């Protein structure tokens, strides 16, 4: 039986990007050329999934979104100069 993946809303994706920006130093690729291969967003999602012991899919799956929605500390999870 082919089970369709739940649709991500645009709001979910904005929320996820902001989460990754705040806690995992995600920076959107600026400029005209985006390198082939894993997108920066997917790469950061993988980093976040590994940090939280989630399955590393690089996709905004329901477990990942659920973890992002949990109340938490505002300090980034990876060290940033700030």
């Amino acid at each position, binding site marked *: 039986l082919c089970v369709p993946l739940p649709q991500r809303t645009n709001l979910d994706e904005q929320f996820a990007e902001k989460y990754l920006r705040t806690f995992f130093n995600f920076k959107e690729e600026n400029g005209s050329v985006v390198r082939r291969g894993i997108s920066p967003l997917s790469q950061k999602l993988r980093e976040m999934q590994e940090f939280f012991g989630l399955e590393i899919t690089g996709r905004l799956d329901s477990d990942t979104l659920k973890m992002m929605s949990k109340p938490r500390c*505002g300090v980034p999870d990876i060290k940033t100069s700030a």
Partner: protein
Amino acid sequence: YSISGNDLKWKKNHLTYRIENYSPDMSVAEIEQSIDKALQVWAKVTPLRFSKVSSDPDIKVLFGGQYHGDSYPFDGPDGTLAHAFAPGPGIGGDAHFDEDELFTFRSQKGYVLFLVAAHEFGHSLGLSHSQDPGALMFPVYTFHDPDTFVLPQDDVSGIQSLYGPNPEGPVDPGVTRPTTPDACDSDLVLDAVTTLRGEMYFFKGRFLWRRPSQSDLPQQSLIANFWRGAPVNIDAAFENPESDRVFLFKDRQVWAFRGYDPVSGYPKSISTFGLPMTVRKIDAALYDEQSGKILFFAGNMQYRYDEAKKTMDEGFPKRIDLTFPDIPGKVTAAFEYRGFAYIYSGRVMFEYSMGSKRLFRLLDNNYFLTC
């Protein structure tokens, strides 16, 4: 554990703090007690000592909303609860709490200020976030009873890597520090195993591993993150898919949840399942989907309860080895999966056909935990 940076630590052991303002959620006394207690969590295991001052302190504690004077605005209720800065002059060491949160002294109705503050002061002293889901420095908030809270070993190792141990020796020598079990530890003996809506849950202490249906990578978390108010160190668990309920057992009590939501009226006595008063606790439980009956293991006896008739089956209780002759010792956990009974006894797991009760395989304890 993780530290903020090699020399991002205080160069002195006597630190001062000042509470700049107060949240209307709690009394001044409760806030001051929570902050002091949160600092003492770290003082107990290091040479660090804290004193409250009115002059310019090392650590400022303040409650602020959205924009509150630094470059990191808060986000209203829930989401980000607080943040703190690594040791250093000025804002270094300061801890800020989102005043849009409901902070409490010990109630689960809000966020326990003591727990949030103890975490933030970890940052104030030089710790970063830990990837250990049982650590205080894990980024996600989890409720613990503040009266019985003990700083986990991962956090103790972290802070002592910066400041060393408390020269006065352990403040509470009798206390064992919570550690986080390793799924691939060959000596791991599980407390209980159950299915739930196609997923598998393996319980140990205050932790569980959840194995989603479409993945073989178990994810470790705290039981409290899934079932609010559920006991830890449980004895047994089983799912009744018919009623979409999962039951958790501890001593003579049983808790019921529909998915993750508590079922009202629980916990109840295990007599609810026909178990006599002589049974002080059970060791494992297994729900037979085919027959709709529940198999309970207690000591060397097994009980079979007919959920539909609400009665114990005739001929039960009877010795476990009369049905499962290969199981030498105590049953520690059990569950049914795809027509097979998986019965754990210590470090091994027996795979029986539910129909014929014939032993198929002898497997490692962590067979489903994909080590």
